[in-house]
């Protein structure tokens, strides 16, 4: 086996790769997914009551609500616009605070509260926004509450959905770059006959496969790292994060090689990726729904690479906490590598017979 020949094949793939649409998708996808999942779905899964305020007099209510984490505040200039947004369900409720509102409350003038709720807003959101607003008005009044309220919290605060979606984004970076790129690259070479041409040169089939595998590893490591960095999960323990990503890249890329060796053409490659998609994707669901029995996730092969990434990058653990998962992942990689090697010999024999 020649390292020089492997490097030459890899260099060719890296140079020609950007011409391929799959290669471009692999690069674009983590960025697009970060945008879609974090910006859009983050707010879908973690909905907060939405309050619009038209504040003409610098009321302390506005300042207090803007300091609250649980309420999404929108400041508007025009009462008509605010009412239109409440009616269109762009806001759950709207509050108009005219000039001198706070003074009027302090003076005991009992000004009329201009508070509106949207017909489509949930009852719970109406209660939250109404009682919160009323309590803040009581504070302006300056009277002391007749009771003291103590809050006793149990357990640890759950992770926000934006964090729990990180495995999904990293999964796509690994699958697109690690699985789909080297797999489809191999299939395209088969379809276009360039693989056969390559094999009549001194380059061996094993060297081609290793070069394609390295292509997947390099791409998946770069894109998984970029995905974690984009989502603020490439923390201080970056060296350890890199180790787990490297193992993840190795496993996902060997899956790609296996699919690429097996598939006769692009449509079969596409069918393999599509058909196995839910099986590969399944472990990431357990991070979105932590209340599910977590042992089920271990049935799926990609659990063994997603879990170390989750523990080390998101939860800030060290490699010591995930060594079992890493060993299992490397074991799966070796086993799949052996299967790919066996299939490659069969493929080579078939090509020789053509």
């Amino acid at each position, binding site marked *: 086996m020649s390292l020089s020949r492997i490097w030459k094949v890899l260099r060719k793939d890296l140079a020609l790769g950007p011409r391929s649409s799959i290669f471009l998708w692999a690069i674009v996808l983590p960025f697009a997914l970060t945008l879609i999942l974090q910006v859009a779905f983050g707010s879908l899964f973690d909905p*907060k009551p939405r309050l619009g305020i038209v504040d003409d007099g610098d009321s302390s209510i506005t300042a207090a609500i803007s300091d609250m984490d649980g309420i999404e505040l929108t400041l508007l200039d025009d009462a008509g616009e605010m009412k239109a*947004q409440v009616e269109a369900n762009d806001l759950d409720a709207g509050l108009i605070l005219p000039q001198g509102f706070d003074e009027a409350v302090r003076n005991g003038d009992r000004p009329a509260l201009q508070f509106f709720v949207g017909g489509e807003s949930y009852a*719970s959101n109406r209660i939250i926004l109404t009682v919160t607003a*009323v309590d803040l008005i*009581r504070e302006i009044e300056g009277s002391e509450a007749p*009771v003291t309220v103590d809050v006793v919290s149990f357990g640890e605060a759950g992770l926000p959905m934006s964090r729990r979606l990180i495995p999904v984004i990293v999964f796509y970076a690994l699958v697109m770059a690690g699985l789909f790129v080297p797999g489809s690259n191999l299939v395209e070479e088969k379809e276009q006959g360039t693989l056969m041409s390559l094999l009549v040169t001194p380059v061996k089939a094993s060297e081609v496969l290793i070069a394609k595998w390295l292509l997947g590893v390099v791409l998946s490591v770069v894109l998984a790292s970029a995905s974690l960095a984009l989502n603020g999960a490439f923390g201080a323990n970056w060296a350890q994060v890199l180790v787990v990503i490297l193992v993840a890249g190795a496993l996902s890329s060997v899956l790609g090689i296996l699919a690429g060796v097996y598939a006769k053409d692009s449509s079969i490659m596409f069918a393999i990726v599509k058909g196995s998609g839910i099986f590969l994707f399944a472990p990431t669901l357990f991070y979105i729904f932590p209340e599910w029995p977590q042992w089920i996730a271990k049935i799926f092969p990609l659990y063994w690479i997603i879990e170390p990434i989750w523990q080390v990058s998101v939860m800030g653990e060290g490699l010591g906490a995930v060594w079992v998962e890493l060993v299992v992942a490397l074991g799966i990689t070796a086993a799949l590598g052996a299967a790919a090697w066996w299939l490659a010999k069969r493929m080579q024999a078939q090509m020789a017979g053509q």
Partner: protein
Amino acid sequence: MSRPTSRPAIIRALLKKELTAYSRDLVFLGLTLVVLIAAPFLFHALPDSVDESITLGVYPAIPEMIGDAREALAEMGATEEQLAELDDIDLAAGEEGLALIEFESEERLRGVIEGSLELWRTESGEMVYRDKEAGDKKPEDAERVEPDIGVAFPSDFIAGVAAGKDDLTVTVYSQAGIGEEIQTAMKSFVREAAYQIAGRELPVGMPDEDTIVLGDDRMGDQVTMQERMRPLLLFMVLLMETFSMASLVSTEVLQRTVTAVLVTPAKVGDFLAAKTIFGTLMSLSQALIILVFIGGVTSANWSLILTVLVMGAIMFTGIALFVGAAGKDFMGQLFYAMLFTIPLLIPAISVMFPGSAAPWVKALPSYPIIKVLVDTTAYGGTWGDAWGSLAYAALWLVVLYFAGLFALKRKVETL
């Protein structure tokens, strides 16, 4: 000399060829079947109701608290009128959106919120506690009740507040994962209840109930996740068909079988007509199959739904013709298909979120289609509500369909 073949006969023959080619494309045939089976399953697995309430655990039970207060206040010399006012005190009265669960002891309330105890409600309405660590079994025919948050009032809460006692403390038990807004609201809720018991009126004039709610009040009748997903599933079927139709077109272009077709009496127009009819019928029939399984059609809305699905099917066929003509190979065609369909998917995804879509989303060709589907299936929209969207959709339909037709015609003519 043979008789010239009629155009409909030629198109029929081409349609038969399309059907044969489609049935042989195992990848897309498989995916089509998966979508047809999975979509109804997914639909029926989604929640068909909306829980818009905060489930609040309280100790002691409200009647018990009022009973204790009545005795204490009577001893303090309260008049009959003042005692009668106690009947009006109900901490959750008029508060739609608060589901109260009354606990027998503060320890049990704390245990359930903390998670060391489970609370189950049997079919007869009886509340059963289960201590898993003590080996208690799950009660049969019972559903788990999980309060979001719990409030433990002191036993003399009402009487103490009314008497102006200054050392009253109410404890709110909460899991740390509960949203800060709910914790804050419950603190405010308890304080406001105390203010009202103390007879301290609000420092503002509350608006009239009728003027507060803007738009149709859907409290208790919210659009469920199932209803939101119905138009999305129909839309996804139309969109998925773009991939298979584009694949059929690109295969024909790449393998140049179209040139073989054109040496027969068939003309380019026949070829394009057959592609249009086949693509439209394939996506429309699948959408209708899905519609049968997921429901949503009524005697009032069937014609509107059918119209908008036909428009959607033609629009996506146009896109498929364009993509099929542009793709150089399978992967390239897939890339183009995604490039076109992902932006078209954005309006469908925006349906999942509350509120109106952003102006740029409204400008996308698929927006009027999905809007009519949503309005019709979830909000009971009629032809009168839909005509503006349909006109806008028709405009896009013409542009996209003729762009696809033109691209494929040019491609075929240059082969």
